[in-house]
């Protein structure tokens, strides 16, 4: 039963301890009011009436898989196979084995204390027609103070930029909230344009030109306004994401139109060669690209940059 007088600071502390003891690198708490501008049907209160807080937890992508993915993308002919390490150790494993488990355990902790909580899947289940999840983990991460949006639309943290993954738990517990990020601006668009020869770096390095050059997304979270580039999620997720784009480790004979809609993506998927399908049949999750995240200058590990110096072209 709900304990009305539960010390929320103590419960928040236990939630954070649980996250860190389960290898999470980040945890932040956002009151649900910060999600007032989220799309209808995707706000915390739509999914859980009486929701009070959203807990966002995150995990850094380690340096090794960052190197292998960049090596694979920079040398697709000879080193395509080294990207396997990133797809699992930089994506699927973090989501399925660490973050979803932590969310599951946090859900149980909060329920034992009398609060109903809904754990959101870290990635992999979405409305495939809209390319939209039930709830946005990256917006929740920003709302919970873990970072701010980069131009690539990913939550960038002060220490590793966008090289982190996130999961959320919506709960009726009114946990002790964290302030939103208020440190120095992380995504310096003007400086980034210099790196990117006129375009922000994430836009310049996207091999599929998924980021709009003029359309901007604007969101207001907790009274704070953010802007990031509009992105063609269908092209990104349904071609490069599933490994069928010839420019991003996909089969060289696949022909991908410049723009695609859902129906085209289904037809393309049906044409996926057996060897590509079989490659991911066991572990399922993973994204074949990630360059907008890996090459973002915010928090880029010097080790990776040193290693990759001179080995890759800016836009592949």
């Amino acid at each position, binding site marked *: 039963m709900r304990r009305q007088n539960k010390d929320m600071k103590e419960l928040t502390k236990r939630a954070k301890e649980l996250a860190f003891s389960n290898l999470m690198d980040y945890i932040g708490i956002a009151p649900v009011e910060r999600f007032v501008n989220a799309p209808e049907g995707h706000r915390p209160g739509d999914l859980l*009436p009486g929701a009070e807080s959203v807990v966002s937890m995150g995990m850094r992508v380690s340096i090794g898989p960052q190197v292998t993915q960049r090596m694979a993308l920079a040398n697709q002919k000879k080193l395509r196979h080294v990207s396997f390490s990133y797809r699992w150790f930089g994506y699927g494993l973090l989501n399925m084995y660490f973050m979803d488990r932590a969310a599951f355990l946090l*859900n*149980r902790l909060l329920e034992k204390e009398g609060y*109903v909580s*809904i754990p959101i899947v870290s990635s992999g*289940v979405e409305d495939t027609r809209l390319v939209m999840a039930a709830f946005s983990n990256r917006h929740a991460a920003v709302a919970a103070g873990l970072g701010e949006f980069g131009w690539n639309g990913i939550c960038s943290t002060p220490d590793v930029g966008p090289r982190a993954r996130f999961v959320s738990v919506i709960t009726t517990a009114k946990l002790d909230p964290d302030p939103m990020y208020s440190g120095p601006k992380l995504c310096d668009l003007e400086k980034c344009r210099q790196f990117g020869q006129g375009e922000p770096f994430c836009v310049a390095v996207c091999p599929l030109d998924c980021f709009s050059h003029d359309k901007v997304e604007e969101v207001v979270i907790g009274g704070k306004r953010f802007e990031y580039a509009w992105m063609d999620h269908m092209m990104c997720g349904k071609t490069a994401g599933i490994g069928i784009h010839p420019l991003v480790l996909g089969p060289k004979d696949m022909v991908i139109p410049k723009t695609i809609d859902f129906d085209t993506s289904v037809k393309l998927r049906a044409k996926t060669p057996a060897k590509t399908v079989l490659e991911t049949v066991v572990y399922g999750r993973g994204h074949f690209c990630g360059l907008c995240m890996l090459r973002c200058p915010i928090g880029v590990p010097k080790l990776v940059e040193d290693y990759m110096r001179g080995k890759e072209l800016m836009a592949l």
Partner: protein
Amino acid sequence: MTITEEIKELASSNSLDYVGFAPAESLENEPEGSRPSDFLPDAQTIISLGIKLSLGVQFANRLAHSRRDLRHAIYSYLWHGFGLPSLHYLDRTAILIVRFLEKRGHVAVPAMAASSFDIRSSLTEFSNIRAAVAAGLGDLGWGELVLTQDAGPRARFTSIITNARLEADMKPPLKSKLCDLEKCKELGKGLPICASVCPTHAIGPSEQEVRIGDRIFKTAKIDRWRCMWGSMGLSKDSLGLKDIPMPDTVGPEEVFNGMKERDPAQSLELMVISRGDYCGKCIMECPVASSSEVNQLLLKAKKTGRNEWTRMTVHGRK
């Protein structure tokens, strides 16, 4: 600590809610090929492990079934109510217990929590449900699900068959049956709730007797293929994106063909997590140990809802 105490400790430290032990002979009435001795010739004991579904994922399932505009709420249930507890908690703990028993000189065979399905017989390799009942973790309900006292059918189970002779944990049968069929028929307007809410009419009307140890349970016969039609979301009532006409007689071929007919957006939906059950209505709407908190949340969601999807039962009210 005794071996059984160590196993119980291992289970609880891995977030499991239930652990029980049954003599292997209690399941010797199972169909040939699915008895403990078929898996391990000198099987002595069945260890049953279980984990409850959290209230949040129960609510997510019921919300998705009750509000067309919030179908996406099912995603939390698909993974956090099915795949994750099965793969990450039950299966993982099972392998830890198998390793522990092997170190003690015993052989142990783990069954899969969400078992592979034998297409020929429509049976799972080994019945985790009957093993849980044999181990005293609950009763067998009308819909052939384990009913525990505190969560009703809202739990998942796995089993380990071992040649270690462990002290059986047979608890005395409850004084009153958890599945009160007559009362349930009143709630379900003549049919037990599990049968009345099943979108594919997979539960009954024919009945069967199931013998587990010395106990005999009367349950509905379950048409596993009709159940699969719902769990794969092949009708809108079971959260499919498209109503695919279900033939009167459903078998593997019909399910396979039905899956090919799915809206492509739905077939791609499960591509990544691979597991999940779109339906689960017989579990969620069973009145045994139904959570009042989930029911209250549903009433709130229904009040604010714009677009009702299917009939919703809250403690028998419709």
